[in-house]
């Protein structure tokens, strides 16, 4: 990969891709809930900027609209909703403990290497200027999953989920200049509904276990069923 061959705009897209990936890493390392929501908003803004740049480079006017939707939805509306929920639930100051942060970050680096490995055959075929961005977007998706696996708080899990969605959208933009508009609108709609439902859930979870630590949601695991079965019955009248 010779960066000198890239035009100025292409270099810009690649730099933005790198920043999106960086935002994923900072999400992974961030232990404060509010800060991770902010990092997520920044990632959304970066994806929107990259989309606008691709729209300019490729001369695809409909991508400007996608960029606008992304900016409105992922950089503003969804972070704002999450922020409000955090304030309402009074957990603004909560700090999460991540088990073994160094290991998690190493795993993240390995995932990035892995995505480059998987994306190589795809890159060879690509006729587009933005080549290694597919690998980066796949890495963002995988890192989103890693966030969801390593975090215990319901809200940070949702942030991981949304950041995964960022990776998917980014993949669509850089590899194919965006999906057909109707699909993009559908995906955006689903995402918005999902955010609202997540919001409802936070309150439901809070009500049922008086915390948002999803580790405590463990009544339904297969192993506990046996324990429940041997529990003594309540004496009947």
């Amino acid at each position, binding site marked *: 990969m010779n960066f000198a061959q890239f035009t100025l705009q292409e270099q810009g897209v690649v730099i933005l891709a790198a920043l999106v990936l960086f935002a994923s890493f900072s999400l992974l390392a961030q232990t404060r809930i509010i800060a991770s929501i902010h990092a997520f908003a920044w990632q959304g803004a970066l994806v929107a900027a990259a989309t606008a740049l691709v729209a300019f480079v490729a001369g695809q006017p409909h991508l400007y609209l996608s960029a606008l939707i992304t900016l409105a939805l992922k950089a503003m509306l969804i972070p704002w909703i999450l922020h409000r929920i955090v304030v309402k639930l009074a957990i603004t100051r909560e700090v999460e403990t991540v088990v073994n942060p160094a290991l998690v970050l190493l795993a993240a680096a390995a995932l990035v290497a892995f995505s480059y490995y*998987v994306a190589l*055959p*795809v890159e060879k*075929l*690509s*006729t587009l200027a933005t080549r290694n961005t597919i690998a980066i977007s*796949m890495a963002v*998706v995988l890192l*989103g*999953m890693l966030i*969801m696996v390593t975090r215990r708080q*319901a809200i940070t*899990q949702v942030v991981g*989920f949304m950041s*995964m*969605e960022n990776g*998917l959208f980014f*993949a*669509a933009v850089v*590899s*194919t*200049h965006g*999906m*057909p508009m*109707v*699909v993009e609108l*559908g*995906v955006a*709609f*689903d995402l918005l*509904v*999902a955010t609202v*439902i*997540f919001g*409802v*859930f936070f309150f*439901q*979870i809070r*009500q*049922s*276990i008086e915390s948002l630590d*999803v580790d405590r*949601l*463990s*009544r*339904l695991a*297969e192993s506990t*069923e*046996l324990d*429940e*079965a041997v529990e003594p019955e309540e004496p009947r009248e």
Partner: protein
Amino acid sequence: MNALFATLLVPLLGSMLMAVVPRCRIAGWLNVAFAATTTVTSVILALEVLRSGPMLSAGKFFYIDAFNVYLVVLTAFVATTTAIFSRPYMDYELGRGRLNSRRMRLYHAMYQGFLFTMLLALSTNNLGILWVALEGATLATVLLVSLYRTPESVEAAWKYFILCGVGIAQALFGTVLLYFAAASVLTVPEDGLLWTTLHGIAGQLDPTVMSIAFVFLLVGYGTKVGLVPLHNWLPDAHSEGPTPMSAVLSGLLLNVALYAVVRTKMLVDGALHGVSNMPQLAGYLMMAFGLLSFLVAGLFLHRQRDIKRMFSYSSIEHMGLMTFAFGLGGPLATFAALLHMTLHSLVKSAIFVTVGHATHIAGTQAIDKIRGLIRTQPAVGWGLLLGTAAIAGFPPFGLFVSEFLLLVATMESWPWLTVALLSGLAIAFAGLFRNIHPMVYGNQPEGQLPVQANMLPVYLHLLLALWFGLAIPAVLAHWFDQATQLIAGKGVL
């Protein structure tokens, strides 16, 4: 074509109307009425397709052929019979104070919304919209799983939401890759997600990209099908939600997800045909995942303590069997898979309806507390027994035929795997009956009283399953054969 729009619009309108109807009693009836109207229009649609062949409409946005039209009819039909069951059942739950009238409104609105998303997923020609609709189906049902607001149900719903969300995100990545492969071939990339277009140019699509895309799509949609090891959400979601929801989730949603997998498999098979060194990659992957799910779920049947959980594992087992059959390919296995899909939907929803009544009789879902159903209420007891016999593949019922056909097909191409299939069937059979037997026959606890049960849907479904087992009507056999031709290249008849 008008029938198609009616089929989609009726549940959509129903969903909106139900969101504002304040009276639960009326909403229950309206739910039945909307679902029944959808069934009628879907049958009209099916007759149109039967007469004039596959059709594209609304600027290639919808595509209806023999494969999806029968699933449309099946979906609408099972949704109707389940709605008939749901009306008194939910009334009873309301009376017991497990939910309030606001949540009932949510329930009815989402029931119709769920029906709409499934029909949209089935009828659309655009693979992107297929994804949107399937995600929509998750969103519509997730709040219904937590409808009772018990800690268990909230946990089940959260698991369902997160796992299916992550899973289906993989499917979106696969869809992006599909589009990427198509866009480099097509002159008008806008058409690159239309299934008909993709199917036409399948031979030109890049095989490497298509294989990677299929892995993502299989993992993504496979999560929704409930394939092991991505099945963790399924028993929870199916057991904690209201019983009518369990019936439509098990009977319908899993089918729609499998439908999505099969559609993409057809594309990947086209792309890999003759080019790659492993032309049946998609089939092998599906066979492996399917067989694993089938065997693992069969074993899990033995250690269940909750009756609805047990039948959810039975659903995983049957979905595994169908995935295996579709993966095996070839006309006979495909025919068997299509037949199995239909019969499993009918019988499994009938079982869940019966289980709903049984849990009302016993007042619990715990298997070791449900006893003596036949003594207390013969209709429910026999319904459960016959339903279980049907789902286990006993001869007079149709599932015996489909499983037998699948075994024959396996014997032809992979003789050794028949051993695995037969032992899996035996394990599942033993698992079901060791639990069902005491529930149906055992001594009834004192003071156990019959409830007002609506067994009409159950008997209707079981009769259909019996009919298909004794003699598949010629029209239907022809129909399945057409679908088989579409998927496998040639028919069996």
